[in-house]
């Protein structure tokens, strides 16, 4: 690139809530046509920085000092009316959650139009052409027909494309992308990242990319700034940064990415759980008499087995039926057909009360550590509940001892028993959830994306803990995930799921290095990799 003109410069920006300083004097510059990545974990102040640039901070937060210069304008000196013409026209923003950023009762066309009319004088005939052009540019098929669609008719990736089209509508000079792909599946994330990269090149657009995913950074960014606790620790161009990270925290972030070439082999052949041709169908009902007119086939004939002391990873994108299948094994979803054998005993046909004794053997850890614990119960009540109802230990004193030992084992303090879930961070909550599952001494734990809601550095710790616990207790894990990057380090075998069926399964090494099915190959290709270039 020839030009190195600065588009945006932030000097000594400070944001605070009352006396609590959240962003502590950060400075950086974004050049024309550059992708500037702001990396950090949740709570590091990276989103606050982007909101300050747009002057969209919530009222309780104040910018205490510093300045933001965009082109020649000092952003903080503009009036609100002047600022409105900057927002959207000069600086545009795309958000993390495309589902909630589009108005569900207006068509895509109307919403795009609104942005254009607000900032540009454009006549009706040009307008239509421009709208179609925009949608074409962001890669939406049949753009003319899609203009009349409502957001719910589009897929998640398409919604994000529409958001990008809206952001581009007024030809901004700077695009602020706040975790634009976090809510999307890997294959779609790949498409969106490619799209952003293309747009940057064709429009000579500057992008402020906010993310926590080092893989995305490695692939996309020209310049990287690492943020922690409101400060920029390190700022360097991408290659230098990854080759030679200066700060301790940066090194940790980079190392938190699991290595992709370190596999664990198969270790045991004694089957614990055997699933054969499992089908989970939900009836579609119609009419006054609720006749069943058809089925939604969420899981359609899945077979696999989990050996003792082994981890089987089920990998798939959202909607592939992997969570539904996990819940069916737990009998939280009805089984339509097929067999589930646990230690050679058939579970599929059992009634609720017959299944009760087996609840001890199969436990679960959920994805969202914030909704998996009752906010009105203390940690003691939460862990104790299963032990009492499954009659693991009748003696209250012994229960207390077990709980203390468990909490210490998962890296918490016995004193934490009296606290409530909201007093813990996401990672700590997930540790409590692990302790809760272990409290009934299960032989199989179904882990339903236990790390996807956690920051990268904490994700590594939780996975490490699960690995250690498996080695100590010999528990088997059925690990449901969408994140292929954590699989090699964790699982003995992998099964890849798509649209309710398993398309490929085998040992981790086999699947990761020599994928047979084209879907697996696409998945593997989509993962943003650190060392890919």
């Amino acid at each position, binding site marked *: 690139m020839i030009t190195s003109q600065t588009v945006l410069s932030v000097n000594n920006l400070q944001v605070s809530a009352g006396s609590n300083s959240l962003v502590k004097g950060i400075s950086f510059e974004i050049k024309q046509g550059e992708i500037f990545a702001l990396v950090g974990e949740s709570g590091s102040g990276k989103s606050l920085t982007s909101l300050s640039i747009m002057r969209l901070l919530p009222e309780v937060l104040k910018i205490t000092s510093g300045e933001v210069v965009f082109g020649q304008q000092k952003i903080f000196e503009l009036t609100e009316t002047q600022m409105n013409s900057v927002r959207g026209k000069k600086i545009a923003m795309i958000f993390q959650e495309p589902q909630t950023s589009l108005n569900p009762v207006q068509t895509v066309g109307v919403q795009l139009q609104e942005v254009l009319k607000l900032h540009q004088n454009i006549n009706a005939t040009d307008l239509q052409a421009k709208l179609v052009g925009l949608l074409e540019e962001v890669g939406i098929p049949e753009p003319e027909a899609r203009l009349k669609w409502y957001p719910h008719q589009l897929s998640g990736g398409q919604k994000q494309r529409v958001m990008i089209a809206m952001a581009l509508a007024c030809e901004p000079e700077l695009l602020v992308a706040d975790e634009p792909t976090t809510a999307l599946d890997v294959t779609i994330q790949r498409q969106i990242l490619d799209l952003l990269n293309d747009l940057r090149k064709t429009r000579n657009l500057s992008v402020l990319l906010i993310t926590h995913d080092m893989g995305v950074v490695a692939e996309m960014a020209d310049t990287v700034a690492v943020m922690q606790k409101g400060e920029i620790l390190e700022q360097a161009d991408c290659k230098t940064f990854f080759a030679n990270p200066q700060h301790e925290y940066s090194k940790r972030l980079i190392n938190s990415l699991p290595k992709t070439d370190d596999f664990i082999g198969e270790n045991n052949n004694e089957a614990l759980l055997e699933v054969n041709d499992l089908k989970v169908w939900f009836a579609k009902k119609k009419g006054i008499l609720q006749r069943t007119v058809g089925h939604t086939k969420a899981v359609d004939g899945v077979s696999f087995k989990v050996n003792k002391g082994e981890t089987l990873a089920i990998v798939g994108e959202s909607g592939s039926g992997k969570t539904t299948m996990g819940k069916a094994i737990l009998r939280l979803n009805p089984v339509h057909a097929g067999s589930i054998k646990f230690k050679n005993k058939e579970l599929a046909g059992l009634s609720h009360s017959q299944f009760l004794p087996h609840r001890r053997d199969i436990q679960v850890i959920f994805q*969202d550590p914030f909704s998996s614990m009752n906010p009105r119960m203390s940690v003691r009540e939460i862990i104790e*509940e299963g032990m009492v*109802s*499954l009659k693991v230990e009748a003696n209250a004193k012994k229960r207390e001892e077990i709980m203390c030992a468990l909490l210490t084992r998962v890296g918490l303090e016995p004193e934490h028993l009296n606290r*409530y879930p909201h007093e813990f961070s996401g990672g700590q909550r997930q540790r409590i*959830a692990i302790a809760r599952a272990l409290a009934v001494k299960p032989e199989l734990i179904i882990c339903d994306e236990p790390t996807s809601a956690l920051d990268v550095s904490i994700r590594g710790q939780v996975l490490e803990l699960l690995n250690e616990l498996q080695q100590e207790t010999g528990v088997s894990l059925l690990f449901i995930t969408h994140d292929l990057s954590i699989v090699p380090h964790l699982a003995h075998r992998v099964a890849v799921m798509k649209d309710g069926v398993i398309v490929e399964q085998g040992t981790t090494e086999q699947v990761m290095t020599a994928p047979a099915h084209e879907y697996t190959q696409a998945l593997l290709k989509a993962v943003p990799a650190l060392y890919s270039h």
Partner: protein
Amino acid sequence: MILPVFLWSDLLIYTLIASVGLFLWQLRKNPQAKKRWSGVFASKVGMASFIVILFYILISLLDSMHYREPLPQLNGVEQQEVAYSSEVKSVLDIVLSPLHSSNESTYSAPFALHSFAKENMTDSNGAIYRDFPRLKNAGSHLKDVSERWWDVLWRSVLAILLGGLVAAVPIGLHKFYRNNSGKTASEVVPWNVAYKTLLMISVIGCWVLSLSEYYHILGTDKVGSDVLYQSIKAIRTGVLIGTLATLVTLPLAIILGISAGYFKGWVDDVVQYTYTTLSSIPGILLIAASVLLIDVYIETHAEQFNLTALRSDFKFLALCAILGLTSWTGLCRMLRAETLKVSQLDYVQAAHAFGVNHRRVIGKHILPNVTHLILIAIVLDFSMFVLAEAVLSYIGVGVDPDMHSWGNMINAARSELSRDPVVWWSVSAAFILMFTLVLAANLFSDEVRNAFDPNTVKGDS
């Protein structure tokens, strides 16, 4: 000796207060709920409105301790049994005895010394003329009519001083206790607001009580009885109808709503069918029909209701029940929706995975997480029912005409307001007292909502 009388509604109010006490005692064990409630009282509005509500409850409690006085024994006759008056009085009547006993013959304006209507009178010469007659009781201590406003002013000053003194005692004691206990330093309870509210209530109370001994400060009604007395007696009706009708709605709404949302399937169908049917019938029509049925029942079972008070109490309770039975659908619908949402959350799924039984899942996981809806509904429904009573009495299907209620007063005002000159004080008195109660309840409910609604609670999820 007097004979204590326990009406059914009295017993209910006693149990109610006992259960509120029990609830507060239970609260000490639950630190989270305690924190939420102290959030309610940490706000100035919440504190002030709570004290106003407390004052209303105190009056209705005093008015719920009923007794019958013995009749004076006939001269010379030795009776074995003491005969009791058929009039049921309450402790509040003792406090308000000057009001109750000082009846005039017809309308008189607030602070008036003369009647509101002209009468035929005979002068000293025997000639008949028409003029406003002097009232029997109001201002009878005055030597001359012109002294009236000076008298009112002087007595007001005295009453306000007295009110200040009365309030100073509990406030002083409490301050002394707070200073000595020491641990209160970290508390954020706005005691100053509480003191001010208490002072205001005490000053107004003393002023009203001491002046009403000499004047009808809110005038008199058609048959000459004191309007202030009526409107104070109506407090019990208003407070009781609010709480009792709300209490009737709760079990129905909670049990049906949560089971519909939790069990789904046919249970849900039945519950939904029931409440859609019920809410498609005009509520007023249903209430009017039921009230007529009760009237018939009372007439055919006259022997059970040998006292007027018993009759009106029965009718009143029936009205509360009907109001409650016709208005549980709103809360039920909300609870069903919330339960549908909560029962899909991971922690409920986790409880299922632990084999926890349905009763415990509902009691431990679902109910505590929908309590905020119930609490908000209680306080909102309360004020709705107080207003509903007024509306029902206005169309003639409300409480018994013998029972003092704001609705009956407003009903009477229908003809009073069409007179010329207008008789405005009766309806205004009912309006002011009802407005204060409903406003306080609404403000309090706002604070409760702020403290308990997960969407507004900041800092914890």
